């Protein structure tokens, strides 16, 4: 019996503990480490946790969008960086004031023009909302344009093409300096509702905003998935042929799922721009904006919205924990390399999860159709790589 199979067989009992254990471990470390490092300063720790929570919420939103595309629609999009980049940049250029100065160039800058309801202090919130809507719109249109040619490709070709598109868009933002200020990036992105409290306390406001948006998006996606439309989507993922045979326009559904997921990613990108207040090419690297989000979804559980959020929590938690560990007085041989070790762990984690627990920490709760049961067995998938012609006899 192979090693992973042995673990699976014997571990039915303690398998159920993995998810809560992982959650508790990360939570403990995320609270303990900053607390200890700040000398048990309550304020500093809470402040740290606020930052942590904000970005977990924002990344969770993004991963929810990815879950719609991959978990529910079955589209293998490796170019999610494109939507993150578009969402963030669009929100930034919509909400910022026009470009000023010799060294700052970008299009847009409608922030000042959006104060349409001054009696309600709309300059505090209206631009940000418009920014999010614009981000959604641009991401949606991009996805719609891409869907037509791309969705007819087989999955791995699609992955390669999406990488190319993401890279092309990234290149454009860097090379065409008048677009979004090239390598210098955009800074001073207005923060929604920042006059509400003192600057020092703003982090709680943005935390509240991010969590609120996350809750809205979560429930919206949950409703959508449980709707008849959502059921077709999931049936499609399990068995395209059967769904097509029952008369559904496969392409239309896939395109809709793709566009919807993209728009959600746009929301995530926009919120990121607001929270980080400055974005640039360094933010949109393949490792960060592609791999990390995919890692979050795989670790948390694809096809499961709660899993998407949990994955964001766990992976970002690990990320932040390593940052904290670096602050300690470690031997030079480790401290200089802690980030690389972290990257290695993340890479290995993805492989380990795929091997030992492919459904992620939080598996899909409900089954859509009997097609899933058929596919859960040993029947070979339509395009599986060469394996033994029969199922293994262990």
């Amino acid at each position: 019996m192979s090693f992973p199979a042995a673990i699976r067989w014997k571990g039915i009992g303690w398998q159920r503990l993995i998810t809560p254990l992982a959650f508790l471990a990360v939570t403990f470390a995320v609270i303990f480490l900053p607390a200890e490092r700040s000398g048990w300063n309550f304020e500093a720790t809470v402040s740290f946790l606020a930052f942590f929570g904000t970005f977990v919420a924002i990344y969770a939103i993004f991963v929810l969008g990815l879950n719609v595309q991959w978990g529910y629609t079955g589209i293998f999009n490796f170019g999610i960086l494109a939507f993150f980049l578009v969402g963030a940049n669009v929100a930034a250029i919509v909400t910022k004031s026009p470009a000023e100065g010799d060294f700052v160039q970008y299009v847009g800058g409608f922030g000042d023009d959006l104060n349409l309801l001054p009696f309600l202090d709309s300059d505090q919130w209206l631009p940000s909302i418009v920014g999010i809507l614009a981000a959604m719109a641009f991401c949606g249109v991009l996805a719609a344009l891409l869907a037509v040619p791309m969705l007819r490709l087989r999955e791995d070709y699609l992955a390669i093409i999406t990488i190319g598109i993401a890279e092309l868009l990234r290149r454009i933002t860097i090379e065409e300096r008048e677009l979004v200020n090239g390598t210098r990036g955009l800074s001073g992105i207005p923060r929604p509702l920042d006059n509400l409290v003192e600057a020092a306390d703003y982090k709680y406001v943005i935390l509240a905003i991010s969590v609120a948006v996350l809750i809205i998006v979560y429930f919206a996606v949950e409703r959508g998935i449980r709707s008849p439309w959502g059921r077709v989507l999931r049936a499609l993922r399990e068995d395209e042929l059967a769904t097509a045979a029952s008369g559904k326009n496969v392409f239309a559904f896939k395109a809709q799922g793709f566009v919807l997921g993209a728009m959600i990613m746009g929301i995530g990108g926009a919120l990121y721009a607001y929270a980080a207040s400055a974005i640039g090419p360094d933010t949109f690297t393949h490792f960060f904006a592609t791999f990390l989000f995919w890692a979050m979804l795989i670790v948390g559980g694809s096809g499961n919205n709660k899993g998407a959020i949990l994955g964001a929590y766990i992976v970002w938690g690990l990320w932040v924990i390593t940052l904290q560990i670096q602050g300690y007085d470690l031997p030079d041989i480790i401290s200089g390399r802690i980030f690389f070790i972290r990257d290695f762990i993340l890479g290995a984690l993805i492989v380990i999860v795929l091997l030992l627990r492919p459904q992620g920490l939080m598996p899909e709760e409900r089954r859509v159709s009997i097609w899933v049961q058929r596919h859960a067995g040993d029947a070979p998938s339509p395009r599986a790589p060469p394996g033994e012609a029969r199922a293994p006899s262990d």
Partner: protein
Amino acid sequence: MTAILQAEGVYAGYGEVEILHGVSLTVNEGEIVAVIGPNGAGKSTLLKAIFGLVPVSNGSVRLLGHDVTNLATDRIVAEGMSYVPQTDNVFPSLTIEENLEMGAYTRRNGIGDRLDHVFGLFPDIAPRRRERAGRLSGGQRQMLALARALMLDPRVLLLDEPSASLSPKMVDSIFEKIAHVNREGVAILLIEQNAREALGFSSRAYVLAMGENRFEGDAQGILDNEEVGKLYLGE
């Protein structure tokens, strides 16, 4: 009558679905044995179970007295059993000659004499030996598939619906070849939808239905049997 192949009480299936519920059959030296029955009877699964492609959960398969149940396919081929699937039974991008070479892959030393022998058996494909197998017509492909299975001089040959999707003329051709191969000393176990034709040149036959043995006997007897005729031969 030495038994070349013996399947006894074979239970087999895919995952949780059991398709064969205790099927037995014997193929003796020099025989052509046909397995017929309605669709979904498990004929194809039986062949695959014997050849080790479908896991056997109970029962046994013996080849020349050795237990080969659930043995790895390359071992089974080495023991002297060959199998021709119903579809996708040639390598389309390989040449005819290369296809045959693959049939004799496990053989260490030269296969030149074996190649000559097989080409002699199948003169239609011999002149096109350097052509890609994908270019062949349906009938020629079946010939090639059969030829490939003969490269290692098997004692018993398993054929999954050799006449499927062939024109009537080709069906005659292929059955003729099968009979010829059998005369050379290879025992044959074949399953067929085309029951009448198969029974026409087989020695014995088994009738399978719903994963179980229903009838067995010499081919003429089965052919004459009214009950079988009504149920399975579409009289």
